[in-house]
């Protein structure tokens, strides 16, 4: 690895001071599972690295007012995978955490790192998009909240300015009768990268679809929502035929490329299949659980 200076702050304020002083020359490291490989292969050569492992405030994972969720940026994939409240109320998020890397990687990899690395295939992005999460971003001049849907601006690019850092993901409370699921397709379950990932989240109101969210990974430069597919569901009783129609519409939201993991046609096919499957499970979970009580 290229040499760098390592700074070990203990608070968010200290992090922000360093980021402001180093004006674009510093890189924040949380779990390191994306950053270190990129530094080892020379893709990134930051002169200064700011380690977040001493900032305990970033590891908080707790119920917010009204039983939404506050997820500190340094919460690990493993913590999301195992947390009882996340598993029962936000299962799509727990499922995405469980799919990252291997257990050795999940114990390091963080939700903030997964989002800030901004790979089109980021597994934790689709469920958080489907849950209407907001990114809480801190800077020396104060903090701002950005809907996650506006957080990604391109492949490996986010709205974060060099002197800013992601500190928390804020997930609003779900209504009763809400359910979600995240599925991805990979040749191998562990240590693989999504050919396509789909998260669906449904809320039922008086037997019809009150709210629908469908988010896709690995089919565009950034994780994206399938807005037309969501619209087709809202206000309707959800039937297998309607799910099929939404799955068809979700394909139109995908702008995939062909690469070593899959062709355009294969990815479009996977969007249809995984949207259908996740909507079916989301519906079942919405009917049977009273999620977000």
């Amino acid at each position, binding site marked *: *690895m*290229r*040499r*760098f*200076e*390592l700074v*070990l702050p203990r608070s968010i304020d200290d992090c922000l001071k360093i980021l402001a002083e180093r004006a674009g020359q510093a890189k924040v*490291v949380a*779990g*390191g*599972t994306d950053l*270190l*490989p990129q530094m*080892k292969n020379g893709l990134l050569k930051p002169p200064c*690295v700011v*380690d977040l*492992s*001493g900032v305990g405030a970033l590891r908080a994972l707790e119920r917010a007012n009204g039983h939404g969720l506050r997820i500190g940026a340094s919460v690990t994939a*493993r913590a999301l995978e195992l947390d009882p409240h996340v598993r029962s109320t936000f299962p799509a998020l727990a499922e995405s955490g469980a799919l990252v*890397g*291997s*257990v*050795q*990687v999940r*114990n*390091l990899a963080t939700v903030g790192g997964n989002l800030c690395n901004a790979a089109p295939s980021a597994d934790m992005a689709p469920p958080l998009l489907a849950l209407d999460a907001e990114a809480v971003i801190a800077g020396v001049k104060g903090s701002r909240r950005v809907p996650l849907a506006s957080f990604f601006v391109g492949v490996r690019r986010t709205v974060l300015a060099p002197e800013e850092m992601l500190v928390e993901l804020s997930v609003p409370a779900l209504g009763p009768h809400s359910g979600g699921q995240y599925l991805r397709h990979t040749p191998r*379950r*562990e*240590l693989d990268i999504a050919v396509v990932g789909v998260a669906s989240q449904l809320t039922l109101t008086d037997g019809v679809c009150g709210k629908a969210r469908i988010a896709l990974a690995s089919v565009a430069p950034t994780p994206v929502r399938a807005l037309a597919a969501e619209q087709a569901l809202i206000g309707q009783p959800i039937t297998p035929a309607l799910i099929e129609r939404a799955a068809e519409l979700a394909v139109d939201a995908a702008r995939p490329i062909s690469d070593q993991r899959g062709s355009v046609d294969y990815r479009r096919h996977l969007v249809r299949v995984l949207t259908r499957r996740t909507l079916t499970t989301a519906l079942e979970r919405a009917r049977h659980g009273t999620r977000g009580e």
Partner: protein
Amino acid sequence: MAKQILRASVNDEPIEVLVQPYETLLDALRERLGLTGPKEGCGTGDCGACTVHLDGQPVASCLVLAMQARDRSVRTIEGLAAGTLHPLQDAFVRHGVPQCGFCIPGVLMAAAALLDSNARPSEEEIRYGIAGNLCRCTGYTKMITAITEAAASMQEGARR
């Protein structure tokens, strides 16, 4: 670039050692502390040969900066069992699991972490528990047999 002082607990001993800011935990363990059990296979977290426990949880030590282990507890294969063989090591020996042996310290640390959280894992749970560890000799079948047997013998030991 100035070295930094790493203070941590390694295999239940307090350590204090100077490390480079850009040094990984794996390199510090191997090069500074002489603990060559953890191996560097890929260096990118894909192979699991560098698996150690950090505060009791298995991690890829090639992806951890040495200084990120400050004030934390690290356990390597050398500290898995004090002065004896861990039931997992014993079962690996009896079943002749190691072939070239390079992956074995990492597999044992992953398996030990699995049994810490799940004393009687199913075969599928064992397979997923060591899914982050690659064995290029492809000796997985014997690993699974040995881990199953070690889990049973640890339960038996706990009952006695």
